[in-house]
C-alpha cells in the first residue's frame, strides 16, 4: 500500500517537474529563442533535476525507504556479479548455521525439554539413574544408591511422606515387555502393543487433563477393582481415528478384558522419552492378572520408578533425609538386609532426589554424550565457517578499495558507502541464515529418522524452536556485519587520492595481519575437526569390523511372551517342547533355538556369580537361558567341552556353559570344565560343562563380556523359591536356522505357535 503510494508520488513529481520545464521552455520560445536553446536554458535554470526531486521527496519522509530499496537492488546486483563468491559464502553459512540449528534443535528436544506437564519444576524423582532397570532384587550395594523399588516400598514411601502432594510409581521396564491387545469385536485383530503399568495417581501427579473420557484415579489401582486402562492420544488418533466410542469400550489385553476409561492428553508421550511410547497406561494392580507377573506384590522385587510432586516450600535437604530414612525402614524388613552382613549396608541405603520435570532420563542418559559431542563438532564447524566467510569478505572488501576510492572521489558520502556495504553483508548473511534454517529443518528430521528408525510417532518435534532460529540469524548477521563492514570502514578512512594513487599497498599490512590470523584460526579448527573425524571414523570402522561371532545367514528370530500369555512356571517345559516339535516339523527348518534373549537384543539378565573352589573369584556376569539347539541356531561355536543337549531337562543335574570372557575373568583362562559356580549363598549350583565363543549380546560395545548360559528349565537345587516366582524361566526368543531362505516365515510362525504366546 505504502510502496504503491510512494511510486505514484514519484511519477507525479517527475511529471510536475517536466511540466515546469515545458512551460519555462514555451515562455522562452515565445520570447524568440529556438526550441532547443530554450529547453537547454530552462533545464539549466531549473538546476539539478534529480537533486530537486530527491530533496522534494525527502519532504515526504520516504527517501530512506527508497534508498534502502536502492541499496538492496544494488547489493543483489553485486552478489549476482560474483556468483562464485556468493555461492561459497551462502553454502558455508548454510552448512555452519544449519548443522548448528539442527543439532541444537535435537539437543533442545532431547536434553533440555520438560515433560508437557503442569509446573514441572515441582516434580522430583527418587533415584538418579536408569541402570536400575526393569525387574530385580535389591541386593546390598557398596554405594547404597537405589533408583527402582518394590510395590511395597512405594506404598510405604507414599504413606510416610506428606511432603509430597502426590507420589506416583511407574513400571521401570515396560519398553521390553509388550502386551497383546485386541478391541472387543470378532473382526478386530490382536496386536502387540506397548503398555506401561502406573499407579492410580500417575496422571494426577503430572497434573494432566484427559484428551477424552477420564484419566486413571486411585480407585482404579485398588486390588479387585475392575480392570481399566487409559489409551495414549497418538494411538487413539492413529489406530482408532480419534473415535470417541473408544472411551468406555472393552479391550482384551493378554486375553483378559478391561475397559478403556479415557485418552491421555495430546502431546503426552509418557514419563520418559522412548522410541515407542506406551499405547496404554494400566493400573499397577492389574499387572498380576494381565501380565501374569507375580512380582507385582512381592516386597523384595524392585520394578517401579517413583516421581512425586513436592508441596511448595519443602526444603530439599530435609526431604532427601526423610526419603532416605523411610527407605531404610522399608529395606530393613527385606531378606537381603536382615542378615548380619546385610545390616551393615543398611546405613548407606539412599535414593538421590533428582529433578523430575524432564521425566525418567533413559534416553537422555543414552544419547547425552553423543548429542554433546555432535554439538561441539557443529560448533567447531560454525567457527570454521565464520572464519572462512570473514576471510572471503575481507579479500573482497580489499579488492573493492579502488571502487570505493573512486566513489569517494566522486563525492559519495562515507556513511552512504558503509551503509551500502552493510546492506550487502546483512543481505548475504540473511540469505545464508534462511538457507541454513531450511537445512536445519531437513537435518533435524534426518537425524530423528536416523535415531528412531521405523518409529511412527516420534515423541520429538523436528521443528527448530524460536530460540534456535534467533540464534542462527543473530550469528549469521553478526558475522556478516563484522567482516563485511570492517574493510569498508578501513578503506573509507583512507584518503581516496592516496588509495587511488597507490592501489592497495597503503593499508595492506594492517588487514593482512587480520587475514593471517583468520587463516591460522581456520587451519587450527580444521585440524581439531579432522583429528576428531579421524578418530571417529576409526572407531566406527572398528565397530563395523567387530566379529560378532555369530552367523546371520538363514536365521529367523521369533519373539514370544509366554508369561503375558498366562503360562505358569510348571507348564513351560511342555510348552517349549511343543514349540521345538512344531517348528522341526516345518520343512527346511534345521535348528530351533529357544532362549531368554538372543545376541544383540537390547536387554539381558545379569547376576552376581561366585566360583565354588575359589571364593575370591566373583563378580557380575551376563546370564541367558537356552535350549539344546540354541548355540547352533545362533552360530555360537563351542570351543571346549559340550553345549546343551536334550537331556539337560529340569530333572537332570544343573549344568552351565560359560563364554571365553567368563573363563578369563573367573578362572584366569584355565580349564573351567567340571568346576562349579553359583550365587554367593550357594556357590555350587551349576557344573560347567562347556566353553563357547564370546558372542556379542546387548550392544556391540559389550563384546568381551563374561557370560554364562543355563538350560532353559534347570533350576539349582539350592533355589527353594516356588517355580512360579522364577520369571527367568520365561523364554523371549525363538531362533530358527533354516536350510534356505523361507518366504512368509512370519505367517508360518503365527500358525504354528500356540495362540497368544506370540508377539
Amino acid at each position, binding site marked *: 500500500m505504502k510502496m504503491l503510494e510512494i511510486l505514484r508520488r514519484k511519477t507525479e513529481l517527475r511529471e*510536475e517537474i517536466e*511540466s515546469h520545464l515545458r512551460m519555462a521552455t514555451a*515562455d522562452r520560445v515565445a520570447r524568440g529563442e529556438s526550441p532547443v536553446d530554450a529547453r537547454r536554458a530552462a533545464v539549466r535554470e531549473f538546476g*539539478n533535476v534529480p537533486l*530537486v526531486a530527491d*530533496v522534494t521527496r*525527502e519532504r*515526504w519522509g520516504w527517501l530512506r525507504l527508497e534508498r534502502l530499496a536502492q541499496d538492496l537492488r544494488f547489493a543483489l546486483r553485486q552478489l549476482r556479479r560474483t556468483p562464485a563468491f556468493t555461492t561459497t559464502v551462502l553454502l558455508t553459512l548454510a552448512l555452519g548455521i544449519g548443522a548448528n540449528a539442527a543439532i541444537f534443535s535435537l539437543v533442545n528436544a532431547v536434553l533440555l525439554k520438560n515433560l508437557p506437564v503442569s509446573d514441572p519444576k515441582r516434580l522430583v524423582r527418587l533415584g538418579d539413574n536408569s541402570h536400575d532397570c526393569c525387574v530385580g532384587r535389591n541386593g546390598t550395594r557398596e554405594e547404597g544408591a537405589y533408583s527402582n523399588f518394590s510395590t511395597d516400598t512405594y506404598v510405604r514411601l507414599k504413606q510416610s511422606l506428606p511432603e509430597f502432594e502426590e507420589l506416583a510409581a511407574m513400571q521401570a521396564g515396560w519398553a521390553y515387555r509388550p502386551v497383546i491387545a485386541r478391541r472387543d469385536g470378532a473382526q478386530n485383530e490382536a496386536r502387540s502393543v506397548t503398555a506401561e503399568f502406573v499407579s492410580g495417581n500417575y496422571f494426577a501427579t503430572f497434573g494432566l487433563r484427559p484428551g477424552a473420557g477420564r484419566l486413571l484415579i486411585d480407585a482404579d489401582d485398588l486390588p479387585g477393582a475392575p480392570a481399566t486402562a487409559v489409551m495414549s492420544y497418538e494411538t487413539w488418533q492413529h489406530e482408532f481415528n480419534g473415535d470417541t466410542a473408544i472411551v468406555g469400550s472393552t479391550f482384551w489385553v493378554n486375553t483378559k478384558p478391561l475397559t478403556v476409561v479415557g485418552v491421555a492428553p495430546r502431546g503426552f508421550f509418557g514419563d520418559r522419552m522412548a522410541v515407542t511410547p506406551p499405547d496404554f497406561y494400566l493400573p499397577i494392580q492389574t499387572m498380576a492378572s494381565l501380565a501374569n507377573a507375580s512380582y507385582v506384590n512381592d516386597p523384595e522385587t524392585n520394578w517401579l520408578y517413583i516421581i512425586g510432586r513436592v508441596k511448595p516450600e519443602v526444603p530439599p535437604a530435609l526431604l532427601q533425609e526423610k526419603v532416605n530414612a523411610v527407605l531404610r525402614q522399608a529395606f530393613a524388613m527385606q531378606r537381603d538386609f536382615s542378615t548380619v552382613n546385610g545390616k551393615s549396608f543398611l546405613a548407606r541405603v539412599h535414593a538421590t532426589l533428582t529433578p523430575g520435570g524432564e521425566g525418567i532420563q533413559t534416553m537422555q542418559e543414552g544419547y547425552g554424550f553423543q548429542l554433546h559431542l555432535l554439538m561441539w563438532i557443529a560448533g567447531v564447524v560454525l567457527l570454521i565457517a565464520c572464519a572462512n566467510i570473514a576471510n572471503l569478505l575481507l579479500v573482497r572488501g580489499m579488492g573493492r578499495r579502488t571502487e570505493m576510492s573512486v566513489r569517494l572521489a566522486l563525492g559519495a558520502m562515507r556513511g552512504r558507502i558503509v551503509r551500502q556495504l552493510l546492506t550487502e553483508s546483512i543481505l548475504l548473511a540473511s540469505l545464508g541464515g534462511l538457507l541454513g534454517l531450511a537445512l536445519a529443518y531437513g537435518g533435524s528430521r534426518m537425524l530423528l529418522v536416523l535415531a528412531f528408525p521405523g518409529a511412527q510417532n516420534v515423541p520429538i518435534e523436528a521443528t527448530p524452536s524460536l530460540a534456535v532460529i534467533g540464534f542462527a540469524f543473530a550469528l549469521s548477521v553478526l558475522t556478516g556485519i563484522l567482516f563485511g563492514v570492517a574493510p569498508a570502514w578501513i578503506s573509507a578512512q583512507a584518503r581516496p587520492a592516496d588509495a587511488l594513487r597507490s592501489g592497495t599497498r597503503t593499508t595492506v599490512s594492517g588487514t593482512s595481519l587480520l587475514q593471517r590470523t583468520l587463516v591460522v584460526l581456520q587451519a587450527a579448527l580444521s585440524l581439531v575437526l579432522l583429528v576428531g573425524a579421524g578418530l571417529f571414523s576409526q572407531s566406527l570402522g572398528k565397530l563395523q569390523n567387530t566379529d560378532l561371532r555369530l552367523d546371520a545367514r538363514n536365521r529367523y528370530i521369533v519373539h514370544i511372551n509366554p508369561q503375558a500369555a498366562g503360562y505358569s512356571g510348571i507348564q513351560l517345559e511342555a510348552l517349549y517342547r511343543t514349540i521345538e516339535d512344531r517348528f522341526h516339523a516345518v520343512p527346511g527348518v534345521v535348528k530351533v533355538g529357544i532362549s531368554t534373549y538372543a545376541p544383540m537384543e537390547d536387554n539381558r539378565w545379569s547376576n552376581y556369580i561366585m566360583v565354588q573352589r575359589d571364593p575370591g573369584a566373583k563378580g557380575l556376569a551376563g546370564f541367558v537361558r537356552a535350549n539344546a539347539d540354541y548355540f547352533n541356531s545362533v552360530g555360537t561355536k563351542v570351543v571346549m567341552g559340550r553345549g546343551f543337549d536334550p537331556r539337560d531337562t529340569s530333572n537332570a543335574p544343573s549344568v552351565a556353559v560359560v563364554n571365553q570372557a567368563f573363563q578369563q575373568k573367573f578362572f584366569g583362562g584355565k580349564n573351567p570344565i567340571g568346576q562349579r559356580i553359583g550365587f554367593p549363598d550357594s556357590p555350587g549350583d551349576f557344573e560347567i560343562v562347556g566353553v563357547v565363543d564370546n558372542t556379542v549380546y546387548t550392544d556391540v560395545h559389550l563384546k568381551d563380556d563374561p557370560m554364562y548360559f543355563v538350560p532353559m528349565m534347570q533350576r539349582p537345587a539350592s533355589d527353594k523359591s516356588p517355580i512360579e516366582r522364577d520369571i527367568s524361566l520365561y523364554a523371549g526368543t525363538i531362533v530358527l536356522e533354516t536350510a534356505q531362505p523361507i518366504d512368509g516365515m512370519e505367517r508360518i510362525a503365527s500358525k504354528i505357535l500356540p495362540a497368544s504366546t506370540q508377539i
Partner: protein
Amino acid sequence: MATRSSYQNRIELLQGTLDMLILKTLQWGAQHGYGISQAIRVTSGEVLQVETGSLYPALHRLERQGWVTAEWKQSESNQRAKFYKITKLGKEQLASDYERWEKMVATIEAIMTSRRGVV
C-alpha cells in the same frame, strides 16, 4: 546570458519567508509551480527569483502540512500541470505568518533607526 544578467541584483530570501510568499501568491487563485515562481519574480519587480531547488520541496512541505491542496489541471497554455490551491488552514497560517513578519519588520526598523545610547 542576457536572461541571467537581469537577475543579478536579486536578494536572498529570508529564512521562512518562502512559505509565506507562496501562500500569498496562491491567495489570488490556484497556480502551478512555474506560475508561482513567475508570479513572485514579476511581483517583486524581477528582484526575487525563487530557486526551483527550494520551491518544489516547499510546495510539497506545504501540501503535507495541509496548507495547500494540489490538483492536476490544464493550464492556460493547454499544458497538464499540478495546480496548488490554498486551504482554510493555509489562510490562517498566512495571516499568522504575516503578523509575525510585520512585527519583525517593525522591530528591525526600530533597531535600525534608533540612535546609539538613547535607550
